């Protein structure tokens, strides 16, 4: 629990500059880049009981973490985030002392011969950040959780006009975790066997950006687990002492099961790496979002692209295709994203027609990537 700061208290704390820089770099990712609410461009520093806590939030996500420090005075203040991160990064190795001078409205920072006085923001203006309460949280395996995020996150939308699509649907079921994301052009769904979990069905739409930040923070973590708490409005994650809070997105996630056609006309097995190389090479000529054309005919697929005033490319690859000749256009990035999300050596591509969705899967059925084509002109 955070204690309210006693008025007049003066924060004074000493720690290692290397550690401060490293921890500030993490906290700094929560700093708001919009300047309309000034205090949110700051990082909260709170010194108490032998540690210095750093926190930042842009109201959509917040990050909080602590480091060991010698505390000579309890207290808290808020300083310009970007600036403090940059200063800490460039400090020489050694001890750094941070002292809040409330009467001057500054934070004095000294490290060897270097000293700074930074103007501070009023700590009362900084939002209260939620805590992770033990009774309502549960833990999940870190690698399984992060792998599931990585499999679906690319399909999340960046279009803020439909907020629900900027999130990833995270659902805990008995013994497994399901995540889904769609930007309405493609859909990724990954099911992962999971030990632990909440012990009951639970779901939330979590901003993809927040899960991206979590992945970044947790990638190199020492802990094998991530603690998760799901609240009415927020989801709280904790790994290695870093607490990340994300605002839950309101609304109804699309019923994605209805998006997946029940039957397909053609199915072809593709050597993932080889096909991906062909797609990557050819995609160089699919500039300005020109479509990548896939032409399937007896025994081979030909991938081609052309961009006006730039040029064109094509390359064929033998594949076991026996159906009618079919030509279909895809956004090159979307196709690549789907293939890259397959972790097995073989990728299966299922098609219906040039205007119906295609399905990419690995060898198993635990992952699917549904992709809508581009209607080719002429």
């Amino acid at each position, binding site marked *: 629990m955070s204690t309210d700061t006693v008025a007049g208290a003066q924060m004074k704390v000493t720690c290692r500059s290397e550690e401060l820089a490293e921890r500030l770099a993490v906290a700094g990712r929560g700093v708001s880049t919009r300047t309309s609410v000034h205090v949110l461009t700051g990082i909260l520093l709170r010194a108490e009981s032998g540690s210095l806590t750093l926190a930042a939030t842009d109201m959509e996500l917040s990050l909080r973490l602590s480091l060991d420090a010698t505390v000579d005075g309890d207290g808290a203040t808020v300083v310009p985030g970007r600036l403090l991160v940059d200063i800490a990064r460039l400090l020489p190795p050694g001890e750094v002392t941070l002292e809040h001078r409330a009467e001057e409205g500054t934070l004095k920072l000294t490290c060897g011969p270097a000293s700074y006085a930074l103007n501070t923001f009023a700590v009362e203006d900084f939002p209260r950040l939620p805590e992770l309460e033990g009774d309502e949280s549960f833990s999940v395996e870190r690698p399984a959780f992060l792998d599931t995020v990585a499999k679906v996150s690319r399909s999340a*939308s*960046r*279009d*803020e*006009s*439909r907020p629900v699509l900027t999130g990833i649907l995270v659902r805990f079921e008995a013994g497994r975790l399901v995540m889904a994301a*769609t*930007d*309405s*052009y*493609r*859909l990724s769904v990954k099911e992962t066997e999971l030990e632990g979990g909440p012990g009951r069905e639970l779901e939330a739409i979590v901003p993809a950006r927040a899960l991206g930040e979590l992945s970044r923070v947790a990638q190199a973590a020492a802990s094998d687990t991530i603690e998760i708490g799901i609240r009415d409005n927020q989801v709280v994650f904790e790994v290695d002492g870093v607490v990340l809070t994300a605002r839950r997105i309101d609304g109804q996630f699309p*019923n994605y099961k*209805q*998006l997946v056609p029940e039957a397909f006309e053609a199915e072809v097995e593709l050597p993932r790496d080889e096909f991906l190389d062909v797609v990557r090479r050819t995609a160089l000529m699919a500039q*300005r*979002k*020109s*479509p990548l054309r896939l032409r399937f005919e007896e025994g081979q697929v030909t991938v081609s692209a052309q961009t*006006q*005033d730039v040029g064109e490319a094509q390359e064929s690859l033998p594949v076991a295709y026996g159906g009618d000749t079919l030509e279909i*256009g895809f*956004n090159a*990035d*979307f196709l690549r994203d789907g293939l890259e999300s397959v972790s097995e050596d073989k990728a299966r591509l299922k098609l219906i027609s040039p*205007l119906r*969705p295609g399905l990419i899967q690995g060898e198993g059925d635990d992952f699917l990537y*549904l992709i*809508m*084509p*581009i*209607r*080719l*002109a*002429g």
Partner: protein
Amino acid sequence: MSPAVGSPIIAHLDLDAFFAAVEELERPELRTKPLVVGGDPHGRGVVATANYVARRYGIHSAMSCAEALRRCPEVVFVRPRHAEYSAVSRRVWDAVREVVPTVERTGLDEGYLDVGEVARDLREARGIAGAVQAAVRGATGLTCSLGVSTTKVVAKVASDRRKPGGIVLVPPGREAAFLAPFPVRTLPGVGPRAEERLRAYGVTTIGELAALPDDRLAAILTGSVGVLLRDRARGIDARRLERVVANVSVSQEETFPRDVADRVRLHDELRRMAERVSERLRRAGESARTVTTKLRYPDFATRSRSITLPVGTDDAEAIGDLACHLLDRALTERPGALRLVGVTVSNLESGVQLRLESG
């Protein structure tokens, strides 16, 4: 048709009083009357084009229609018919391409021609320019003016010198001298702000801009734009024809007869414009990745807010949703009634990315 050796030969073509001329083609009796194509003279309409009779009364583009009416009470007002103008414009450019195959359209009524491709020297270029005028007149009955020189900037300024129906040639080596006497504002790239700054430092003609030493130039116009404009003032312009013939954007906007604060009404307007924009994209088989909403406040402060999608859309509803969302965002930052709203789509691409649908 051997390629020109040495300097390029570029022509700028400008149709004379285009919208008005199209109207006159259909109603020849208007030819002798002052004619304005534009908005409502009793509301906030502005003059899109005035014919040459109306210009004698001092009426010109961008003037308010109310002012045009004051200057000439007999003036005939006609509402613009953009679909018609597009169709005529297509015929014009098809005719131009018959004479000069490589053209860069920069608007419905103007563009650049790579005359060097079909003429060896300026003497031949004059013949080509005459042939272009004849082809345009033959195909549409419209007249146009051409400027011919070695660079885009000089050709553009030259095409405006002898309207209507003129041809102005500026030979190699004469570019700077030709430009020198004109007011700086005539130079493409010099907007009202740059003009104001230049004027404040006593620079009123293109020649004076061309003669500015580096340090003074840097004091007046910061960054690379100063050097760019001074180069242009000296007739130096490395731009060649851009052959991407496709549209770069599609837009719709509307100035209201009275300022509008009602959000529902504003959304309705934007959605209606989105329909029209979508219609034009569909006809061209294109989709757009960037949607921009433009707002103009009663004090003429003009703002625009854009969003770029990972894939293009031609869907009226999607464009309308985005446009309204952008409007709401802009109005949060600066609330108030609006004088104008508009929707532009850009970042156009061919083919249409389809959406997932249930079933």
